[in-house]
């Protein structure tokens, strides 16, 4: 088990290295001189040269890459061009709303999708099943910002029972925090419940055809323990894998949702940085998000042994 754990953690290093190479090349091969951009339009050549030396841009590309990765390994994502503050600090400062939104969305997606998927699988081929699948295709086709505006229009502007936009930190109480987050999380959670419901349904249909399910029914076990204790646990591995795969898409969805509901999170930080051409921040956010994805999938890989004790490392 421990040997596997170490091996699995080490296996993330090449992936992270490729991520670093891709992001580095993206930023450094893009047209335009960052030094010239930084100094401004009417700068003298020697000023640009000075800034270039200060940023180390006069060094060859491989040398810069090694320096940069060395900094990354120490948790140094560089500094913002605009206000010279460390990028990592800027991200961590904005992390609470983003993490809240992401976690709440996943919870809502699971709460909606797993029962729907089970219901559809239990009634495979019947009207309920069709209905669930129609819901899944629909919520997968409509963009999260449209669902967000629709929910905002109905609940915040028409019925006026929820705040329109913004974010209240968790420290100011669970109620206000939830009131601000519930609509964005439902909007984002709906999209993911579609993916998850489809996966739950198809896996459950497969599992429900297994011999041990027939045995459980033959010995007179009630439907509920069969579905949840026997079937769902055995269907868990592919379902949990889907959550991991969808996590990358979830982060993209978070950026959009934050924009719709004016939530001051990492997504807003990214868009602000893009519009102000603050490349180190853009670069830092992409790296940070990719790192989070790799870590989430690592944890999910390790959770398999909990759901399926046959998987031993």
């Amino acid at each position: 088990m421990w040997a596997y754990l170490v091996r699995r953690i080490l296996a993330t290093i090449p992936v992270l290295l490729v991520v670093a190479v891709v992001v580095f090349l993206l930023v450094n091969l893009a047209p335009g001189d960052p030094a010239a951009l930084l100094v401004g339009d009417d700068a003298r050549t020697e000023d640009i040269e000075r800034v270039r030396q200060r940023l180390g841009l006069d060094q060859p590309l491989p040398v810069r890459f090694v320096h940069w990765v060395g900094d990354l390994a120490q948790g140094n994502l560089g500094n913002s061009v605009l206000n010279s503050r460390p990028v990592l600090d800027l991200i961590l400062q904005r992390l609470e709303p983003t993490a809240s939104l992401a976690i709440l969305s996943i919870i809502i997606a699971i709460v909606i999708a797993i029962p729907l998927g089970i219901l559809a699988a239990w009634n495979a081929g019947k009207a309920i099943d069709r209905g669930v699948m129609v819901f899944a295709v629909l919520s997968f086709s409509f963009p999260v910002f449209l669902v967000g505006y629709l929910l905002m229009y109905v609940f915040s502007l028409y019925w006026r029972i929820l705040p329109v936009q913004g974010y209240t930190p968790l420290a100011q109480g669970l109620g206000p925090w939830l009131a601000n987050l519930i609509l964005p999380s439902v909007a984002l959670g709906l999209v993911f419940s579609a993916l998850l419901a489809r996966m739950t349904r198809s896996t459950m249909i497969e599992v429900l055809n297994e011999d041990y399910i027939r045995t459980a029914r033959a010995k007179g076990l009630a439907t509920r323990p069969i579905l949840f204790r026997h079937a769902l646990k055995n269907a868990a591995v592919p379902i949990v894998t889907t959550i991991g795969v969808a996590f990358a898409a979830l982060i993209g969805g978070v950026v959009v949702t934050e924009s719709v509901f004016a939530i001051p999170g990492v997504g807003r930080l990214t868009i602000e940085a893009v519009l102000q051409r603050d490349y180190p921040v853009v670069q830092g956010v992409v790296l940070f998000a990719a790192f989070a994805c790799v870590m989430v999938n690592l944890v999910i890989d390790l959770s398999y042994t909990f759901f399926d004790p046959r998987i031993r490392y």
Partner: protein
Amino acid sequence: MSDLTIKDVDVAGAIPRRGRVMEFVRRHPTVVLGGGLLGVLIFVSLAAPLLTQYDPLRLNVIERLQPPSERHLFGTDAYGRDIFSRTLYGGRVSIVVGLGVATLSILIGCVIGLVSGFFRRLDAVIMRFMDGLMAIPGVLLAIAMMALLRPSLFVVVIALTVTEVPRVVRLVRALTLTIREQPYVEAAISGGTRAPRLLVFHILPNMVPPLIVQATYICALAVLGEATLSFLGVGVPPEIPSWGNIIAESRLLVQRAIWTIAFPGLFLGLMVLAINMLGDGLRDLFDPRLSRKS
């Protein structure tokens, strides 16, 4: 499974033509429904100049923020531009992006995937690179690319293609690994067929059905992706009416003019829905065995 397909064709051949069409509709309703809806949406976008007399770009401050009426079917925006006209023309951007991204990523993915699946020495390197690329959330990667390059329709297509290619590579590589074990590939190799010819004429044709299905899903994701980027203000230049741009311009009008968001949003959702239905239907059509499972 292939026996089944042949039998189906024979049965269909015995039925008169009219009956054959009805039989296809009955058996594959999603293909017909999705394809039909998509056809209508493409038609109204391309025929936009015939369907509306309004120029999608013409400002008309006197008629600003009008709700839907007989004059302006979908109402007008804050500059008095006709939303119906803008929505129809906006579909063109989605069609270009959807087709462009699907074609490009399938082409590039096929080349890399075939090479990776066939030349085992390159495989490890290529696949590690693809793993890394897939670890970066697609929307963020596209946003970063849009930030670094000058925004244009072409750059949007490129940015979305880069995020889709790794998935195609994985699929093509997996298919190549299965197909290369088939007896007819072995026969071709022992007959002296060279690698390029083998890949293009013996292996590639056998992965067309799953690639078509994959292409429809990529198309749907690309249409959504363009709308997302444009909505965030880092997509198609704002002077081009695209569904994402129209919604982005109206983000402060949710309360005053919900129609400026609802109609382009509805068209966007319907187009993605149509493409997804077509994809699901085609998947079942190509592989009836899969349809029973998922």
